[in-house]
Each structure stands twice: as structure tokens, then as C-alpha cells.
């Protein structure tokens, strides 16, 4: 059985989905169901008394999905830690998708504050899944700090550009001792499949589902993309051959005797 194991907990699905930007809760639920996901991310915000909203949690079956609160909106380590603690106080399991994004334009993660927050949260018993740029050395620092995964971005969040950081993600996959979850920028099932073919352990998708004309069907498409990529990885892809270079033989001396 090919299972994804994060912090000792096993999952059969390797596709995590986000719940942001959907036109309606019905569309969100359709995307979640279509994706077959077992982990869904949520954010924390102030209650708006003047515009009462339907509670998000009413739509997410806790028996079926692990709720993964993120720290979106945090601009530094302190804010991220505060949000993580709030999420735990709200009754969530102590899992947190750590994201610290001081840059309001591309929402690129701050490596220094992310590492600081990770060190604190791990000590407090959180299972930390940090969102990072595709920086292999940062990934190593985080896994040394005790994070449960690393989540490098494929491209800036919401851009749907695919694996623009492919070469660095390959290094992270080669070197990581925790699961690698490619997060952000995956705009099409083919992008997700490509990440999985490279050996990523899982992917996280949100915008691509939320903006699809039919989020439920797109959820299915991403599920198939992730499964295809994973199966191709396990089956052993035929690798691209270097063109044979004409050069003088290096092992001729073995025949001399």
C-alpha cells in the first residue's frame, strides 16, 4: 500500500486542497470531494459582525478531512505563532501550515521568520508544515528544526504557472528526509503530475480549483493527475538518455591482460 506518512499519520491521498477563493461553499465542497483529498487547509480571520457568514466548518466533515489551519496573513514569526496557537485553541489538532508572507504582492514566504516560527512551534508540540521558496538549504534548516514536511512553491501563489522552480525542487526532493509537498503555482493537473513524477510526496492545490469553471470536475482532474504522476514515479520512468559521446574508451586497460 503506497501511503503518504506525515508525522506518523498515514494518508492514502497525496493531494491536499485549499479552501480559499471559491465562489461558494458548495463549489468548495465539490472540489474537495472530487479531489479525494484527506487534508484541507483553512485560514483564520476576525469575525465580521456586520456581515455574518455561514460557518466554514459546517461544510467540512472532520471525520473525513484533517483540518490544516494555515497562518496566512502573518507578516512575521510572532504573528504566525499567535495564529497557530489560536487555531489549536479553536479545537484543531496541533497541525499547522506555517506561512509567513510579509510581501503583499507575490505573497512570497519570508525564510528567516519562517524558520524562527518553526523552531518555536515545534517546541510547543505543533506538527509544522512550512511553506517556503524552493530553497534546498532552508529546507534542511527546517527539517533540522523538526518540521514534519517542507512545502516548496512551484511558482508564486495564485499564478498557475507550474513548476518554475523545478531544478531546486529536484534538489530538495533528492536531499530531504521529510516528505516534500509542492505548494503554490500548480495551475493544471499536468503540473501536479510533473511534480509527482519527479518524486514529490504530495502537492497542495487551491487557486486552480477555485477559479475553474467546474471546481468539482477540476478536483477530479487533479486527483487523476496526482495519481498518474505518482504511479509513473513508482513504475520507474524511462529516463532521458544523454546522447552518447564519442570518446576514447576508459576501460580498455581491463582487456590488456
Amino acid at each position, binding site marked *: 500500500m503506497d501511503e503518504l506518512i506525515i508525522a506518523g499519520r498515514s494518508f492514502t491521498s497525496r493531494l491536499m486542497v485549499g479552501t480559499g477563493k471559491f465562489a461558494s461553499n458548495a463549489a468548495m465542497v465539490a472540489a474537495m470531494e472530487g479531489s479525494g483529498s484527506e487534508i484541507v487547509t483553512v485560514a483564520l480571520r476576525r469575525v465580521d459582525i456586520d456581515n455574518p457568514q455561514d460557518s466554514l466548518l459546517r461544510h467540512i466533515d472532520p471525520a473525513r478531512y484533517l483540518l490544516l489551519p494555515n497562518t496566512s496573513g502573518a507578516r512575521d514569526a510572532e504573528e504566525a505563532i499567535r495564529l497557530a496557537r489560536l487555531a489549536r485553541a479553536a479545537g484543531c489538532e496541533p497541525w499547522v501550515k506555517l506561512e509567513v508572507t510579509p510581501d503583499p504582492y507575490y505573497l512570497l514566504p519570508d525564510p528567516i521568520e519562517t524558520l524562527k516560527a518553526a523552531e518555536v512551534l515545534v517546541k510547543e508540540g505543533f506538527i509544522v508544515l512550512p511553506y517556503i521558496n524552493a530553497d534546498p538549504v532552508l529546507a534542511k534548516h527546517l527539517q533540522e528544526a523538526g518540521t514534519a514536511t517542507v512545502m516548496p512553491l512551484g511558482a508564486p501563489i495564485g499564478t498557475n504557472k507550474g513548476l518554475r522552480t523545478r531544478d531546486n525542487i529536484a534538489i530538495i526532493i533528492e536531499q530531504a528526509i521529510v516528505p516534500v509537498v509542492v505548494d503554490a503555482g500548480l495551475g493544471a493537473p499536468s503540473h501536479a503530475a510533473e511534480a509527482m513524477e519527479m518524486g514529490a510526496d504530495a502537492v497542495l492545490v487551491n487557486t486552480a480549483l477555485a477559479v475553474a469553471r467546474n471546481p468539482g470536475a477540476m478536483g477530479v482532474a487533479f486527483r487523476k493527475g496526482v495519481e498518474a504522476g505518482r504511479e509513473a514515479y513508482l513504475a520507474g520512468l524511462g*529516463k532521458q538518455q*544523454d546522447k552518447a559521446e564519442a570518446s576514447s574508451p*576508459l576501460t580498455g586497460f581491463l582487456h590488456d591482460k
Partner: protein
Amino acid sequence: MTFYDVIQRYDPQQVLAEIEAMGPDDVQRALAAEQLDNRDLMALLSPAAENFLEEMAQRAHAITLRRFGRTILLYAPIYLSNECHNGCLYCGFSVHNKVPRRTLTLDEIERDARILHSKGFRHILLLTGEAPGLIGNDFIAAAAQRIRPLFSSIGIEVYPMETDGYRAMVEAGIDALTIYQETYDPALYAHLHPSGRKRDYRFRLETPERGGAAGLRRIGLGFLLGLGNFRTEAFFAGLHGRYLAHHYWRTLLTVSFPRLRPAEGGFQPPNPVNDRQFVQLMCAMRLLLHDAGLVLSTRENAALRDNLLPLGITQMSAGSCTAPGGYAEQNSAIEQFTIDDDRTPAEIAEVLRSRGYDPVWKDWDRAFLSREAG
């Protein structure tokens, strides 16, 4: 978790069966892979891969050129002592061999060191046996401190220490550790190491991890070619190397290929490795560990060493003497093993140049470290 827990998951018999079952298709797939997985490594170590030695050599050569260019680092060993309480069946320094025992004084160590320095060496490797009470960490640290002004890098190849011991070595100016597992097969290990502290397989296996934790900058692995089946040994050495590269990522990995030579005591290697297998093993390691330094000692003869140059070797010993005090005196009676390449360092450097390689005597300097600044 340590590498001991990792290796426990494998049954050596099963691994060997899987390696032997690999076919030409598996080898070709492995040859095309940018990063090898376990199956690829098995394929390259399989009997089937013997028909692909030239392809493996070309790949190994290309990877080495890309990562290291045409350079070979030259180093020399200094044997500080041949005292040893271990009874390793294959070793000339075994406690059971009636050879004259000698431990150098600091002055004698410096005398050898100055000779090597004058020949151009800046990378040096200090060796001892394992003789608790006779040779301790303080002695090795004192030796390193004495010769430190002469060399830019000092390595040790001695008995396994605790992490604190390695921290003391780093403080004394030592930056590299070489520790061979000898064999990864626990049963064979127990048979070959009947007495002395070295009996503890696990303590030895976890030694590189303790060195990495202490902050040593280079850690060298190896197994003795000729003891166990080289295919399974190389597979486990490969896993070991990859494990260390993943967990101690600030430390550069090196892998050595010590092939057993005739030694005092007349030990006959049960699984001798021939030249073709030697080439296969070296190339497989390069294809698995692109960035590892691959080390070749003077155990091998001059002609073979020259031919192996382009296959992935990045460092060599030269002009080695394996007897304590042997650079200043001629005393072959107490050497650990006989060397088979007796060319001088200058001759070897010349051969390297004539083959298009740059002999490197110094490739870093610890003076750049902040710890040294004060």
C-alpha cells in the same frame, strides 16, 4: 534514529538475491538515471552490469568532470603508532602479530610531518591503532596541534570516538575523519573482529554520525574489499553514504576503496575483488554519489592507479609509508600493509600533469574559519 536502524530493515541475503536478479534492462535504466534509487544501485552492482563497464566509466567520468574538473588532491598518511589491542584477522597491526610496537613522540611526529611538508603535502592523515591506555584522544590532539602550522587540513583514521572526542579533535585543528566499517555484514564482522573494543559493530557503524554531529567537515567511508561479497557491501556503503549526506549535509562525504593486500599474519581475503569488479564498484559509487570525494590509496599499483584516474577518483595518497616513523627511517618490518605504488610524490604529480590533471596539494584552509580568527 541512526543508520543502524536503517540497515536493520535489509536482509543481506535478500539484497544479494535482488542484485543478482538484475538484468541488462535494469542496468540501462540505471545508466540513464540522473539520481539513482536503490534498484538502480543494485543494477549497477549486479553481474549484468559487468557488460556495461565502459558505459558506466563514461558516465562516471562525465559526472566527475562536471563536479570536480580535472583535479586530484594529494595527501599522505602519518602513522603515529602501531600499538593495537584489536585482533582483526586481516590486519598487520593485529594484537596477535608479533611485530615490534612503536608509538612516536611528538618530536618524531613533527620530523615525519616536516618531511612530508617539504615534499609539498598540505593535506595529512594521522593514523593509529586502538590501544586504550596507550593511545588516547589527548595524544592525537597533541599531535595535531604540533603539526597544525604545517598543514591546511588534518584528518584522522584512528579508533572510533564518542562525539565529545570528535569535538576535541575539531578544537585541535582536525577537520576530517576516515572510518571504514570493514564489512557491513554483522556475522562476518563478528568473525573478523574476535577481540578488542572493535567487536562492537553498532558503535563503529554509528561513528560517522558522531563525527558529523561534532562538526567535522569531511567524513570518509569505506569497506575492505575482499572481506564480504563486494556487491552487498557496496550497496550498504552506498546507503550509508546517502544517509550521511542527507543527515549531515554540512559535511563532505568521501569514499575509499581499500583493497586487501598481503599483510603480516598471512590473511587470505575470502572474497577477493578483481580489477573489473573494482572498476564496477568505483563507477557505481560515483553514479550514486555525484559529489563525494573518491579516494584511492597506494595499495594499488602504479599502472592501475593511472588507469583509474579518469573514472571518478578525486584524491590519492602518494609516497606513502605505513610504518610509524617510516618517512625519517627505513623500517618496513612494522608496516600495516605493503604499498604497491612506490613512486615519489613528485613523480606522481608529474604523471598527473602529463595526463591532463592538476595535482592539488591544498584545496582549503581552516584559517578562513571564524573559530581560527581569534
